[in-house]
Each structure stands twice: as structure tokens, then as C-alpha cells.
């Protein structure tokens, strides 16, 4: 009995965690910053002692002080993407293009359930496109071009019915290009310059990761 009470209270604690911390989203952004190199001081205004990140430069909040935008395009930043970014539950615009972000795209970014636009193009990201992106039901713009991404395009992405712009050109992707859902409308240039990408998938028994 006691252990069940303990378990329940533990779960309650987990559920309440975001609300308990005074600067939960700010801490997520600090976790990102902690691993980055920022020679141009784009993140200088990110003072961790403030009650929320809403007056930090390149951050925009809504009226409830929740982060809705992160705008760090062309900021001369390098380093890995922090999984903690996945905590920004209200984030709509994640604009990190034109930097030197490296390493894998954290699958936690699939938790950004309010995301409208994700621009990670023009970095040095590698590894696969996370399948978890299929959870980004509000996503309209997804630009991952000009990185070093490999693997196949996750088929789960065909369920992103709001996706209007998709660009994975200039990577090292393989397999075939999906044709279902929004993929029916994307121009072929969006997939260009991936030497192992084998053209639109054919209906039939050919696996989508053919050639991977």
C-alpha cells in the first residue's frame, strides 16, 4: 500500500514537474546553450537568473510566457542540438538554419507538438531524420536541406497532413521518396543531391529503404 502511495506521488511529481520549476523552459534553453560554442555572442542576453526567457534575445513568448519562437538563423553557432529543446511544448518556430549545429537530430524534437516551422537547414547535422517527427501534427514547414543526414525518409511523415514545404536536398539520404499524403505535392528539387536516394517509390513490393 505504502509503495503504491509512493508510486502515485512519484507520478504526480513527474506530471507536475514542468509547473514546479520556475523557469522550466529557460532551463531547457540553457541546456542547449551549455553545449554550444557562440563566438558571436548571439546568446549573451540569455541570463539564467531571469524568471523566464521571454526577454532573452532571439526568443519570443506568448501572453502566458511560454516560448513560441526561437530565431537563431545565421548566428555562427556550433555544437550539438540539445534533447531538452523537446520540452518547449508551445514552440511554433524553431529557426536554427545556417549555423554549424552538428551531431544527430534529437528524437525529442518530436515532442514539439505546437511546431509550425522547423528550419535546420544549412548545418552539419548527421544521422537519421527522427521518426518522431511524425508526431508534429501542426508542422507546415520542414527544411532539413544542406546537412549530412543519412538513412531513409521515415514513411511515418506521410501522416503530416499540414506539411506544405519539405526540403531534404543536399544530404546523404537513401531509399525511396514517399508519394503519399503531402509528399504528393513536393517538387522533386526538395529531394535533390542525395546520391543514394532512388526516386519516387513504386507501388508494389519494393521496400522504401531500397538501396540503404
Amino acid at each position, binding site marked *: 500500500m505504502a509503495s503504491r502511495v509512493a508510486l502515485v506521488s512519484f507520478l504526480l511529481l513527474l506530471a507536475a514537474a514542468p509547473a514546479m520549476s520556475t523557469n522550466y523552459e529557460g532551463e531547457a534553453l540553457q541546456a542547449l546553450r551549455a553545449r554550444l560554442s557562440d563566438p558571436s555572442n548571439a546568446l549573451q*542576453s540569455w*541570463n539564467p537568473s*531571469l524568471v523566464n526567457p521571454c*526577454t532573452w*534575445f532571439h526568443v519570443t513568448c506568448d501572453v502566458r510566457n511560454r516560448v513560441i519562437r526561437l*530565431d537563431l*538563423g545565421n548566428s555562427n553557432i556550433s555544437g550539438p542540438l540539445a534533447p531538452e529543446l523537446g520540452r518547449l511544448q508551445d514552440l511554433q518556430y524553431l529557426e536554427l538554419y545556417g549555423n554549424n549545429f552538428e551531431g544527430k537530430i534529437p528524437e525529442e524534437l518530436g515532442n514539439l507538438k505546437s511546431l509550425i516551422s522547423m528550419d535546420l537547414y544549412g548545418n552539419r547535422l548527421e544521422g537519421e531524420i527522427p521518426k518522431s517527427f511524425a508526431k508534429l501534427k501542426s508542422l507546415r*514547414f520542414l527544411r532539413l536541406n544542406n546537412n549530412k543526414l543519412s538513412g531513409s525518409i521515415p514513411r511515418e511523415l506521410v501522416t503530416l497532413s499540414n506539411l506544405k514545404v519539405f526540403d531534404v*536536398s543536399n544530404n546523404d539520404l537513401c531509399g525511396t521518396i514517399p508519394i503519399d499524403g503531402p509528399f504528393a505535392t513536393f517538387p522533386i528539387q526538395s529531394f*535533390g543531391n542525395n546520391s543514394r536516394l532512388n526516386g519516387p517509390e513504386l507501388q508494389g513490393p519494393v521496400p522504401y529503404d531500397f538501396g540503404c
Partner: protein
Amino acid sequence: MERVHIQPFLLPILLFFSLSFLEAEAQSEAQALLKWKSSLFQADALSSWSLANSTSACRWFGVRCNSAGSIVQLSLPNANLNGTLDEFDFASLPSLTMLDLNTNLLNGSIPSNISALSNLTSLDLSSNYLAGPIPYQLSNLRKVRHLNLGFNSLENPDYTKFTPLPSVTNLSLYNNSLTGKFPPFVLNCTNLTYLDLSYNNLMGKIPDSLSTNLFYLESLNLTDNFFEEVIPVSLANLPRLQNLHIGSNNLTGGIPPILGSISGLRILELYNNSLGGPIPSSLGQLRMLERIDIKAAALNSTIPPELGLCTNLTYLELSLNQLTGGLPQSFSVLTKMSEFVISGNSLSGEISPDFFTNWTELISFQIQNNEFVGRIPPEIGSATKLQFLFLYNNHLSGLIPPEIGRLADLQVLDLSANFLSGPIPKTIGNLTQLTSLALFYNSLNGTIPAEIGNMTALATLDFNTNQLEGELPATIAQLPNLELISVFDNHLSGGIPRDLGQNGRLYNVSFSNNSFSGELPPALCNGFALQHFTADHNNFTGSLPACLGNCSGLLRLQLGSNHFFGSIPSELGDATQLTYLDLSENKYTGPIPTKLGNLAQLTYLDLSENKLTGPIPTKLGNLAQLTYLDLSENKLTGPIPTKLGNLAQLTYLDLSENKLTGPIPTKLGNLAQLQSLHLNKNSLIGPIPNEIGNLAQLQSLHLNNNNLIGEIPSSLKNCKQLVVLDLGDNGIPGNILEWLGEKLSSLRVLCLRSNMLSGSIPPQLSLLSSLQLLGLADNNISGSIPQSLGKLTAMVEGMQERKKTTNSLYRFYYRESVSIVWKGREAAFQKTLSLVVGIDLSGNYLRHAIPTELTNLSGLVFLNLSRNLLDGSIPKMIGNLKKLEILDLSMNYLSGTIPPSISSLTFLDSLNLSSNHLSGRIPSGHQLQTLDDPSIYSGNGELCGFPLTKSCSSIQASDVQLLTDDDDEKYGCILAWD
């Protein structure tokens, strides 16, 4: 010890002399002693000196006679004798060979007739209060071998009459007032084996003749004089030298390597000289060496491995030099090492575990303030005699080895300011002799072990600035000797043990910056010894322990950012030594106790961010030492007491965000030291007093959000130090005066928004070369935007950085707060204010075109020109504003196309161009693609393209040409499919 040998063949002759003759001599000796005794103020030790006791002095205390009954020794050390030697009839004691009066209270001078003691071989007058010159007649004591006059206040003898003492072997003149060069007579005392001239004021060079003349010298002590120039290499010619003490002089020129040839040397002290240079490896030849002390001698080499050959070393002290490199592994054979001190150098590398396994006699290991890396070797547990272990301020990492618990004799342990991680080992509880435990400024985590309660000797416990979590163990309250407990800046939580403080000894307690909760322990100040108590930034609740008011030594009470409630205890007014009182950010209600006006020593008073009500007590005007007064963000009512104008030391006064009424007292103009005045967000009325212009030190003036009327007083032009001027949200009429730009040349923030200002923007504002924030929104300002605003150099990218370094106001800036309309909402900028660069001219009657010069201001983070009557087109070079995050040009009469350069603003995240007459294709580009809310562009009938639904016709197709300038092409790639 001198022995009196009576040669047997002399006995018959002695017997031949009549007894009466001998008796007469003995009586005169006794009389001489009694005469001296009677001259003393204090001679309790000499109670046996009485003819009634014995007519022969030979039985008296401290007296020894030869067989003939003559006094040969007088030995009265440490006998509390107080008086002079003036009545001592030395001539009556012709047989005296030894006179020892050391460690008494004798004063006056040494009488010159002491020379009558012609048989004296040993004279010890050390540790008295004798003064005046050493009598030259002393040099007549031709038989004296031991002469000790140390620790008096004796001055130079007349050297011209002071002949050498041919018999003297031991000469001690330490700790007197000898001046001038090396005493010349000493150089002719050629039988000297022991010479101590330390702690005098001798100067000049150490003479080379010392080495040639004093051939038998075994011990030379010249410590703490003013000897200068080099250490003479001739010292190496002293073949018998064992002890060389020449520390604390002005010697220079390095350590002569030839010192390594003094093969019998046991002690080498060269400390506190500006020697410079290396430690010569030749010192490794000193195989007899036991102690080496070259502390603070500006040495700048590595430690030579050859020192590891000095296997008799027990004491090595090389601290406070500029030594580099690592500790030689050869040191691991120095098995007699007892005290090892190399702190305060730039030594690096790892600590060899062999030191601890081999140095079984180690008592003190002090390597603090260096750059050592690596782990603390677990082998440290082998050095079981260790009493002092100082490893602080290095770059040590890894765990604290649990083996440290084996060091049962340890008294002081300081591992602070390293990169140590992991938990505090439970074994630390075994250190029952430890009085001081300092682990602060590391990365320790886990909980504080309950075993700490076993450390019964512990007086100081400092764990601040780690990542410790969990609760303070209840056992901590059982420590009987605990005086200081400091755990600030950790992740500790839970309540404080209820009995903490019951030992009545706590004087310094810091819980700041944790997550502690519950009430403070009622026993905390039981002994009333508390001096410093800081518990700010926690979740403490309840009220303060009642005993605080009885802590008469209380100096600092820092309890801000908690949940304390109830009224502020007026008993605090009884802790009259209090200098620092911070109760800010709590839930205190009720009035400010008038008794706080009794705290005459108070320099810092912060009661801000509570729910205090009632008026500001007039008695606060008595706090004459106050430099900082912050009562902001409460619910205080009534007028600002005029008596606050008496606080002559005040530099910071913040009464903002209350419900204060009435006018600003003119007496505030008396606060001559005031640098910061915050009266904003109250209900103050009337004009800004002219007297504010008397505040010549004022750097920050916030009067915004009141009901002030009347024009800005021209006296304000005297406040030439002003950096921040915020008069926004009042009812201030009149023109923006030209002198603002001409006189207040330090201004960085000028906010006059939401007033009734009229007229045009004076071009002179461009003279404000430090201005980074200009807020003139919501006034009745007309005319055009002056082109000269493009010359506001602090708004040019990179310029504000340069300003900050030349301007020493950064710390001061830390406390500033200015409200800005930021991304659609009002936001207060505080700690990052110095980074915010922007112009807000919205909501006025500004006409004509936006001057293209504004696009020179490449450091702008925001630009708001909305709600004016501006016409013309958006400046083509708007893309120069690379830092721009916020651009609002809405609700004007702007026409033409949106310049394509706007698409290079990659930080732009808040854009509003609505309600103008703009036309043509909306440019595309990296960042504009993400600004996909159509309302950004609404109310411009002729705009087309994304994100508007209206697509562009072929007429606008020509704009595609402009798109090719866009660096969007950088990643654009059109590939043939194959």
C-alpha cells in the same frame, strides 16, 4: 654549565687564610645581593634572600658558591623580577662566573660596571626590558664565552671603544634595536660558533669577512633585518656551518648554487627575500639538510628533482613563489617528511600516490593555490599522522577518496575550489579530531552523510557552492562545537534540524540559495552568538526565531526571497550592531516597525517585495550610516518622509511600486551621495522639484508612472552623471529640451514616453554618444524624424560593447530596470539592459519620410515608428540592421515596395507593416518565410505573395530579378533527375 674546580693543592693555602677574612667577604657579597633585592619592585622569588634565613648567601635561592663560600653562579631565570640592575654591585661579586637573569621584567640599561665581573664566562640577560646602548665596557669581559642579550631593546654600543671578545663562542643579540651595518666587533670574535643577530634593523651587505674571520661558525642567524644585495658566495667557505637563517631581509640576485657545497648544512632559511631565479639543483648535494624554507622569494623555476636526494628533509617550505612544473617523483623517497608546503605557486601535474604511502611521518601537506590536476590519490589514507591537509584552489577532479576517513589525527581539511565530484564519503565521520572541514566550490553531489554528527571537534563546516541535495542530517545539530555552518548555493531541501543551534555557539550560518523549507529552528540563536545569518533564496516560512533580537553581535541578516510572513518583528530593532538587513521578497504584512530606526549601524536595508502597509516611518531618517534603502514593491501609503533627506550617506534609494502620495520632498535634494533614485510607480503629484538638480552624483533617475506635472526642470542639466532617465507615463508637458542632448552626455537610456510632450525632436539628441535606448512613444511630438539620429554611435553594432568597457558602470547597471514594449508586450529589462538597443517613436505626429540615416544604426534590436504620419518608402538599406528583432512601421502612410534587403534580417521575429500603402511582391527569404502571419501585411491593398493569399501577377514578376540578390540562393539547388 660552569663548574668550579678547586684544585686540591690550593686547599691548605685557602685554609691558611683566616676564616674571618672569608666571612667578611661572604658578608659583603650577601649585602650586595640584599641591596639589589631591596631595589626591586617585585622580588617574591627572592624570599629566601634574608640574613635571618642564613647569613651565608650560598643557601639562598639561585645562588651557588664555591667551597670558599664565594658566589660563583647566580641563576634566576623566569623569576618575575621587576626593577633595574642599577643597584647591583657587580664589584662585590668578583668570583661570579655565571649570571643568568633571563626572562624577567628588568628594565633600565645595562650598567657599565658590569665589566667588574672579570671572571664571568656566561651572561644571559635575554628576554627583559633592558634598553639603551650596550655598554662598551662589556667588551672587558675577556673570559665570557656565552653572551645572550637577546629580546631586549638594546641599541648599538660605541663600536670605537668596543673591543672584540676573544673568548665568546655563543653570541645572541637578537630582537633588539641594533642599527647600521653589520656590527664590526662581531667580525673579530673569531671563536664564534653561534651567532644570532636576528630581528634587528641592521642593513647593508652581509660582509664577506664574516666567512673569512668566523671560521668556526656553525649557526648564523640574520633573520628579519634589512640586509641587502646578494647572498655572499663566501658563505660556502664556512666549513662547519649547519644552520643558515637569512630570511626576511632585502637580499636579491638569486640563490648562489655554491650553497650546495656547505655539506654539513641542516637548516637553510632564505624566505621573504626578493631573490628571484631558480632553485639550484646543487641544493640536492645537501644530504644533511633537514629544513629548507625559501618561501616568498620570487623563485621562478621548476622544483629540481635533485632535492629528492636530501633524504633527511623533514620540513620543506617553498610557498608563494612562481614555481612551475610538477612535483618530482624523486620526492617519494623523502620518508622523513613531516611538513610539506608548496602552496601559492603555479605548480601542475598530478599528486603522486607514493608521497602518501612513503611519507609516514607526514603531519602537514599544503599544496593549495596551485594548478594540480587529477584525482586525490586514495593512498592518502596511508598518511595516518596527517593533521593539516590543504588541497584547495587547484584543478583536482574525481571523488573524495573514502580512505580519507583513516586520517584520525586530521585537524583541518580544506579541499575547496577544485572540480571534485561525487558524494561526501561517509567515512568522513571518523575524523573526530577535525575542527575545520572546507569542501566548498566543487561539484559534489549526493546527500550530506549523517555520520558528520560523529565529528565532535568540528567547529567550521563549509560546503557552499556544490550540488548537494537532500536534507541536512539531523545529527548535525548534535555537534557540540559547531560555530560556522555554510551550505549556500546547493540543491538542499527539507527542513533545518530543529535542534540546530542548541549548542549555543553558532555565530555564522548560511543556508542561502537552496530549496530549504519549513520554519527556522527556534534554537538557532540560543547562545546569542549569531553574527552572520543568511538564508535568502529558499522556501522558508513562518516567523523568525525570537532570540534574534537578543543577538547583540548580529551584523548581517539576509533572509530575502523566502515565504516568511506575519509582521516584521520589532525586536530586530534591539540588535543594534546590525549593519545589513535584507527581508526582501517575502510575505511580510503590516507596518515597517518604527524601532528599525534604532539600528544606528545599519548600512543596508532592503524590505522590498513584501506586502507592507502603512506609512514609511519617519524614524528611518535617523539611520545615518545607511547607504542602501529599498522599500519598493510594497503597499506603503502616505507621503515620502521629508526626514529621508537626512540620510547623507545614501547612494541608492528605491521607493518604487508602492502607493505613495503627495509631492516629491524637496529635501531629497540634500542626498549628496545619491546615485540612484527610484520613485516610479507611485501616485506622486506635483512637479519634479528643482532641488533634484543638486544630486550631482545621480546616475539613475526613475520617476516614471506617477502623476507628475510641470515641465522637466532645467536644473536637471546639472546631473551630468545621469545614465538612465525615465520620466515616462506622467503628465509632463513642454518641449524636449535641447540641453538633454547637450548636457547629459552620459545618458544611455532616455525614456519620456506617454507624457504630453510636444514640439519636434531636437537634433541635438544625436550628441548623446552613449544613448542606446530612446523612448518617446505616445506624446504629441510633431515634425520629422531628425536625420541626425543616424549619428547615435552607441546604436551602431559593436559600439555598445566598447562603451561598456570604458564605462565602469556595469555593476551599477545590474540593479537597473527599464520597461520596454517588447514583442507586443511590456517587459522590464534589468540584468541584460546593457544589451538592449532600440528606438521607439510610436504614437506621435511625426511626418515625412523615415530618414535613410537610421539604417546606419546597425546595433538596433528594435525599431518602432508605428502610429505616426510617416510617408515615403521604407529605406532601401533596412537590411543593414542585422541585429533587428522587432520592426514595427504599421499605421503610417508608407508607400512603394518592401525593400528586398529586409529578407536579410535573420533575427527578425516580430514584424508589422500593416495599414500602410505598400505595394508589390512581398520579398521572400530565410526569415521572412517564417513570418507567415498574413496580418503582418494586412491593410496594404497592393501587396501580393506569401503569406498573403493574393498571388502576384506578371507585372510583379519583375521582382523576381530582385530575388536573385537574395542569399536564399546559397542553398538553392536545381538538379537534373537521373
